């Protein structure tokens, strides 16, 4: 029972309260760049959710088995040497995570292309674009840093999955607002990027209302 409650709390907290885009301001480039139409925004959101869940799980495994002070690899080296030869490999986090995300995206792209051509066509160019989406790296780093998430594989998966859901939510709301904005009379100096950033700011303000509800 407590596991279910924990999972629900982590999910709600990541998707809505600590929304990656609107609270931490990561993943802003696709958030502004691909939010012109709801359909494409949904495609991007799905692709990000997919990759972020995979990357979150795999980077958790790598952290757990190779990078953390108590990990299997570091422990084995130290017991072989008989003393504390290596404290941890946490300084490798960034490079390893970027490496894994890029590799994952490649692999996922090949897999989807071979076995789900309709999905491949639907995702289009967004799939390779995710390689450089900072929201995914951010989620991986948070998972490695947060003691509650770092100790539990299921929690890590739930965190990354709902991080992607939160991204999808934010980008779809943004796309909906922007579709309506197309027919609005926007003052000339604010047209384009200006009004988009103001909209994003107001949305972030609205999401601040959830602060303090949980986690």
């Amino acid at each position, binding site marked *: 029972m407590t596991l279910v409650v924990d999972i629900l709390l982590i999910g709600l907290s990541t998707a809505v309260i600590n929304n990656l885009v609107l609270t931490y301001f990561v993943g802003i480039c696709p958030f502004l760049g691909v939010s012109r139409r709801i359909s*494409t925004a949904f495609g991007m959101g799905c692709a990000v959710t997919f990759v972020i869940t995979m990357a979150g799980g795999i980077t958790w495994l*790598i952290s757990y088995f*190779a*990078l953390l002070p108590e990990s299997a*690899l*570091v422990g084995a*080296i130290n017991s072989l*040497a008989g003393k504390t*030869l*290596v*404290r941890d*490999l946490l*300084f*490798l986090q960034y*490079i*390893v995570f970027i*490496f*894994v995300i890029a*590799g994952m995206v*490649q*692999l996922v792209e*090949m*897999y989807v*292309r*071979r*076995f789900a051509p309709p999905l491949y*066509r639907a995702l*289009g*160019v967004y799939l390779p674009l995710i390689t450089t989406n900072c929201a995914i790296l951010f989620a991986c780093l948070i998972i490695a840093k947060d003691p509650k998430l770092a100790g539990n594989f299921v929690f890590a998966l739930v965190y990354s999955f709902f991080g992607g859901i939160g991204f999808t939510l934010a980008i779809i709301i943004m796309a909906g607002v922007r579709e309506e904005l197309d027919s609005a009379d926007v003052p000339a100096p604010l047209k384009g990027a200006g009004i988009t950033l103001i909209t994003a700011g107001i949305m972030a303000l609205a999401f601040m209302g959830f602060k303090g509800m949980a986690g």
Partner: protein
Amino acid sequence: MTGTILLAVCVMLGLAGVFAVLLGWANVRWKVDVPLQLRQLQDALPGVNCGACGYVGCNEYAEAVFNGQAPPDKCPVGGAAVAQRVAEIMGVELAESYPLRPVVHCAAGYDARLKRAAYSGEQTCGSANLVAGVQGCTYGCLGLGDCVRACQFDAIHIVNGLAVVDYEKCVGCGACERVCPRHIISMVPFKAERMLVVACSNHDPGRAVRQVCTVGCTGCGACHRLNDLFNVTDNLAGVDYDRYDPNMDFGPVMEKCPRKSMIFVGKPSEKDLAAVAGEKLTEPVEADFRTSVDKTDFRG
């Protein structure tokens, strides 16, 4: 310390090895057979995924071309060279394309328009078009310069109340065509530097046209009788630009037109330039806003 460095190197090398094997295996195992033509198309396109062709990325456009759903000349980044290459790969003839340039289908300056009334409302064509009786002709140019404001290239100006395109500066973006509330600007394929156009948009019968304009087309059909390149529909002459040939002799038609509605527009020819080269141009006089007060114009 050395141990940490060595271990870090080993971990990275190990990961690189694992991913190299994994990706290499996946590349072979999950290979998708892409037709040679499609691969060539993908290589021929610039690959910047800008979306200017109307497709999400270069690959999608390549697929559309491959499936015959898109013409080969839709990539504005690659321009003519890429269009040529794409057409070559697909084995199709590249349709000869001409630059589209706007043509103002009205030739009536202020002195040619009849039944004009004083208009002191907001000085835009869009507003003036809503009011009846600004001028007799309900089709012609209003001369309040919506097109001038829409043009980002300073390529259209109001001369004696009539919009005149500066073809030296025009890039053919079509902004003036979209903004004109009376739709008298149309984009014409410029097969030559100078094109013959019908400079009138009035669909009213001849008698009604004569009452509001001294130069408007009455739909008499004289041009059609001389040359079937011209047609008259709804009391207005038109030119069939699909069959237009710049080398045709349009002299008789222009001579015969009783209203002189047939005019050449475009960049001036060398002969014209030579004819006016010796003439001394009068210095343009700029209005001095400190001394001259325009009482009639209310700029809202």
